């Protein structure tokens, strides 16, 4: 081993290729996949993730040996064995949950009979599609010891081309988000702070001003700002002096598998313009504050935790829709980028989470009991207002190169599809109604409506059960 650097390229715990191997091993076994598919249906009906199943136990045990065997060429074998023994159970559990919830999201779209091909690519519905991709990624990573993770990802991304990569993106994002939920929790914390406008720009300016008084210092406010934000991200992600690229490795697929970003390895865009991981903490924190949760929970794991009680199935459905929403938004941006470069966006994303937030805000103002009717125009106006308050609007306008107004969202937004996902998956308390004239059509039946009828005492307990 002489001459070979002892420091591992990626630490095993947060290596997304190890994550990918856990997932690919699970989904490539047809028998296990059948069990998972049935369990996914059970999860969306009664909230049970099936971690008591024998299949899960057998998978967990076998996966550990598989991972050791697969990665012994790139990691120190003893260290690998030790680490997999330590973290293998948890990783297997995450992989199980990632695949399960992925299947749930597919089943929900199938049940709603809408969304695929618009909010997500048609390929999202085919889990078998991801197996060779994960295999390619792992192969690329392990074919050479010391190969950088980002190089492996870029290589495969390049090999597949923009269009195929775009179609694969949501699947990879989903897996990455759930497998590395802790790393993402740090990222979400960072975006949460930014969205609250708590980053003290005047302090940064003052510091740079102060530094410019020192001879030889070249004033660069933007540089200072970026480093400050990076430091903030490092703190949120608990990097404790480690390189920020270590974080990049953990969130590899979410950060690098982007069609719309020219140089995804860079941090600047991620710190200032990111959408996917930026919107998620906003949705979570807003909904949690609306239902009166004492402390904000930004952990993705807690969002998909097994639910119990009367609303367990509906709460599982709702939490899946919330988690899918940032993916919808990001995918639409990416798809616009591939379809046309330059010019105005033809589709503007409104996600189920946007609608859920808007309804929850309306419930707050109307009272937690009883029912009320909201005009769709008012609802969309509230969504735009919410985006504007939270900084989503500006980022979306930058990405879509279009001015976003309630009017543009009414003509080009994905409102009806997202609403159909909520209504057709059986979430109680949200119904369409025609008050004046049927201006909108709800797929798949294309029933006309112009307003939403909300029954607060039906809707709110489901939302509360998401974290209850």
């Amino acid at each position, binding site marked *: 081993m002489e001459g070979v650097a002892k420091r591992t390229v990626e630490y095993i715990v947060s290596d997304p290729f190890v994550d990918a191997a856990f997932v690919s091993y699970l989904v490539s076994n047809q028998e296990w996949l059948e*069990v*998972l598919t*049935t*369990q996914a249906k*059970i999860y969306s009906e*009664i*909230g*049970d993730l*099936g971690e*008591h*199943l*024998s*299949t899960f*136990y*057998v998978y967990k*045990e076998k996966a550990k040996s598989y991972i050791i065997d697969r990665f012994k060429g790139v990691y120190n074998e003893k260290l690998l064995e030790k680490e997999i023994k330590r973290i293998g159970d948890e990783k297997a559990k995450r992989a199980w949950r990632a695949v399960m919830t992925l299947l749930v999201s597919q089943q929900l779209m199938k049940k709603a*009979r809408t969304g695929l091909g618009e909010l997500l690519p048609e390929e999202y519905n085919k889990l078998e599609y991801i197996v060779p991709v994960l295999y390619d990624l792992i192969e690329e990573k392990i074919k050479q010891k010391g190969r950088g993770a980002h190089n492996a990802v870029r290589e495969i991304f390049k090999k597949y081309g923009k269009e195929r990569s775009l179609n694969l993106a949501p699947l990879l994002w989903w897996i990455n988000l759930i497998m590395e939920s802790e790393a993402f929790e740090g990222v979400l914390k960072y975006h949460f702070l930014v969205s609250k406008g708590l980053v003290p720009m005047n302090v940064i300016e003052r510091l740079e001003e102060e530094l410019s008084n020192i001879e030889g210092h070249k004033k660069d406010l933007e540089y200072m700002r970026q480093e400050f934000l990076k430091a903030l991200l490092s703190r949120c992600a608990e990097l404790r002096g480690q390189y920020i690229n270590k974080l990049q490795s953990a969130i590899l697929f979410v950060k690098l598998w982007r069609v719309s970003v020219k140089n995804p390895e860079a941090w600047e865009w991620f710190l200032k313009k990111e959408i996917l991981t930026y919107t998620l903490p906003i949705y979570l924190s807003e909904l949690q504050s609306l239902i009166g949760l004492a402390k904000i929970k930004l952990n993705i794991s807690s969002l998909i935790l097994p639910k*119990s009680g009367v609303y*367990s199935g509906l709460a599982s459905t709702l939490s899946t829709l919330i988690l899918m929403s940032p993916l919808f938004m990001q995918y639409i941006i990416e798809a616009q980028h591939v379809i046309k470069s330059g010019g105005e966006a033809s589709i503007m994303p409104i996600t189920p989470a946007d609608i859920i937030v808007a309804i929850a805000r309306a419930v707050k103002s109307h009272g937690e009991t009883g029912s009320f009717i909201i005009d769709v125009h008012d609802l969309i106006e509230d969504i735009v207002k919410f985006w504007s308050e939270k900084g989503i609007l500006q980022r979306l306008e930058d990405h879509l190169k279009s001015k976003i107004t309630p009017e543009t969202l009414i003509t080009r937004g994905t409102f009806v599809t997202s609403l159909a996902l909520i209504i057709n998956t059986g979430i109680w308390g949200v119904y369409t109604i025609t008050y004046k004239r049927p201006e909108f059509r709800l797929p*798949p*039946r*294309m029933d006309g409506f112009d307003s939403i009828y909300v029954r607060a005492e039906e809707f709110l307990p489901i939302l509360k059960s998401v974290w209850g």
Partner: protein
Amino acid sequence: MTSSSCIGSFTSFVREATGRLSFDRLEMIFKEALDENPVFAEIGRSGALGKNIIIILGGRGCGKTLLLRYLKYRLDKEGWKFVYMNATDIAGLSQKEAEKEFQDLINKHLSSLASDLNEKIAIAIDDIGEKADLIKDALKKAVEEVRRYEGRLKLILASQTERPETMSLLESILPEASVAHMFFGESPAQAIRDSFTKSYIKGIPVILFRGAALINLDAYWSGLRSLNKVADLAEIIEKVAEFYVKNVKNMPSKCIGEVLESVKRIKNGLAFVALSSLPKVRSPPGDIIFEYKGGQDQALNGLGIAELIYRFFAEHNELGSIAESAERFYNQLKNAVKEDINADDVEEVLLIASERSKLDYLKPLRGAQVITLLPLEKVQQLQQQQMKETGKGRKRGPQANIIEVRMKSGGQEILRHIILASLRTDKRGYTASESVRRIRRLVSMGAPAEAEKRFLVVLITDRKQLKDLYKAVGYENIHRIGRDILPIYLSGLSETEKAFIRFAKSGAIPKEVSEQIYRAVIVTLLLSLRDDHDVPRLAYLMLPSVSVAR
């Protein structure tokens, strides 16, 4: 005509009629006594024919095309022009071509509706399930046209239950028509699906919606799948025989009388034999039961009964002796002393019947170690856990009677295990704590697991005991009741069925009809043993599946 030539003419006719005949041929050979056919009579009485959209569903051999022939006869009398088409005629066409062909046909008739206000047209599309996806847009449009020409345009759609496209027709194509709510009410997809799913298990052959009717031909027969209804079924067999014999050309009335007399003599026995056929479960999704006449299998439907009558005359010696023996057994059963039974009796009979019915997909495992159903890795984990908790290892855990169901459906093997347990009551009527503990143990060791196709069936005497089942499974598992923990009540069993259970348990079943009788045990009991939502869940698990590839 001699006696043998009477029978010969009759059997030739039945043989031809039970073959795959075109609509035209059926129309030609069935001209008499259409109103006397018991199935048609019930549908005629139901009010379904007055609706503007009529959906006819049923498994293979249920008589959809024959029913269309009857509808033509009835609608002709009411001044409707009946147009028949078979969706398989558009096979080989592209979606665009098929849509156009269908649209042209509709348009042709619409123009005559527009020009003549007295014109009334009923368009019947047979085997629509096979091509529904291909012409879905034209079908939705046709529904809108029915609304437009309400009262003068009728759309009749016939489809095989087992075809996956049938559900697509019911759940998406028809409900997605913009005026679907005018025919099926609010939430049309849900309304159609729920009605269809329940029709068989509730024995409701005709479901009327606002402007449409759903005729589930299998549900007509399911209403007769009960030991209490053997006499009714026997009457219907006789009427079916009468319907056939009256349609034989130039049949002298003496011959008709002779045929009917032969059937009448042994009709209860024939009914018993008919009951020994097995309904099927549609797979996936598995929550629809229907009658299906496939290959040599018998079925309790139009074709199945006709074939039974044919066999009775053509192979009289063989079927005749079975039917006679079954007739004698039925008389014994009818006169049996009333006596109560308990959960153990039902469990025992399910095991005996699984074995003696000679259904090779069912295998009873008596007193099996439940732990053997789990993978080795899981067993080791359970043993380690036990070692930690009690200091004792290698204990094999509880035993139970298990029924293994292993069958092939759609090229895939289905393997499921049904673990039988019961909530026993003591002398004072309280649930025995030992049976509660046993169920708790089975649940905690992971014996039932829906996704892994292991189900714990808990036989319960009384509905009041459900709370004891809640106690047994624990709060955290209550939501699994109705999924992989199935409470099955004995309270739905009739006196005849209870007598049947005692007979079967004591082994007092005539050997020559043992296979038929035990099959009838399985079928009737499975449909009578229901859960707390009155759904025969055990039937879904134990009846054979049929899946037809797209």
